[in-house]
């Protein structure tokens, strides 16, 4: 039983690690800010999953409630950031017609040199 729990923890922990990689890929590969935001959330949940899995590592003591509480806090914080970013992206699109940063648009000005 305890071995099973440890296997499960390792499995989901690895899944979390892979999600972090997938998320970073999405973050780097896209210029569209909404896509980057989705990728950011994938990285975040990967880290949370990893955290939750490590909470099971000390199997003799059961699931550790502290990581769970911290993850809930983290989820809410990540949502706040996401909501603010979504509002900024839509506003930027309204003002400039683009959902990308100026330097990442084809022919756009490089950052900070304006």
């Amino acid at each position, binding site marked *: 039983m305890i071995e099973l729990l440890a296997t499960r923890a390792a499995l989901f922990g690895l899944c979390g690690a892979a999600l972090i990689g997938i998320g970073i890929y999405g973050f780097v590969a896209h210029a569209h800010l909404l896509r980057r935001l989705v990728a950011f959330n994938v990285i975040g949940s990967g880290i949370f999953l990893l955290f939750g899995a490590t909470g099971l590592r000390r199997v003799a*003591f059961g699931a550790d409630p502290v990581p769970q509480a911290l993850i809930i806090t983290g989820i*809410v914080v990540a949502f*706040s950031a996401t909501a603010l970013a979504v509002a900024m992206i839509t506003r930027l699109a309204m003002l400039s017609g683009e959902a990308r940063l100026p330097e990442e648009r084809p022919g756009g000005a490089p950052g900070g040199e304006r």
Partner: protein
Amino acid sequence: MMAVVFDVLLCALILVVALAAVSGRALFPAVVFFIVYGLLVAIAWVRLDAVDVALAEAAIGAGLTGILLVGATARLRRMEVPEAETGTSAARIATGIGCAMFAAMIGLGLLSLEPRGTGLAPVVAENLAGAGVANPVTAVLLNFRAYDTLLESIVLLVALVGVWSLAEDRHWGGHPGLRQHARTDGVLAAFGRILPPVGLMIGVYIVWTGSKQPGGAFQGGTVLAAVWLLVVMAGLVEAPRSDGRLLRIGLVAGPAIFLAVGFAGALGGTFLGLPAAHAGNLILLIETALALSIVLTLGLLVAGPPQRKAGTEDGA
């Protein structure tokens, strides 16, 4: 044995969906995949014996974030914002290899990690009796690490002020979003009438049950916020003006009461200290107020910046 098969399948599915969400060419399918992703991650939390987190993920990840992103996608499409990507496939492959290596390093680090000590599970169990609640996760959130939770409720408010400040000057203080409407006797309006009573009950139940079993102010508050948004989308009530005095008081009520209780503790010698005899009641007070503020803040975060003054259709 079947449990292992299930877990492996679940992890594989999560990874495939995450890949689909970040790597596809178009925005809308990516968003749909991301909503599905939230749902699958909620199931993963159940498998990690973290039902409290599963509730939060289901309500926020599969619920509110879905509404938020889908709405934003549709708005961007309406504005005909270009979506074409520029990167070359060689660059993408290189990025992919780099990310895979990074993920592998994290995974190896995790496997090679030798956990020292007992973790905090036994310490939490030991102190649970004086915490005022029976659910250990709620005990951590509202007592042992209440300070984190206080700051977290503030983070929500900061985000809301940030969102509001993106309004146009002339719309300041007005209603967020467009004036929602639906056919009065239509399916949407009917859905918006049938669901809220049930949703209200479920949300309140989840806030209330948090002291004993998985649940709590954040999870329940998120559910209630989503229900509120549904009623707004069904055109049954208007999203409130952002300069309403009552609304503003509701927004700060939770953090303010939390802060007041914490400071009263400081006067007694312990910042955010909850005397064991009253901890249960104080937590109930804080959770109720927090839930109210969370409902309002989350709902308005999704609704977006003020976009029109009373009654006008003046939008984008």
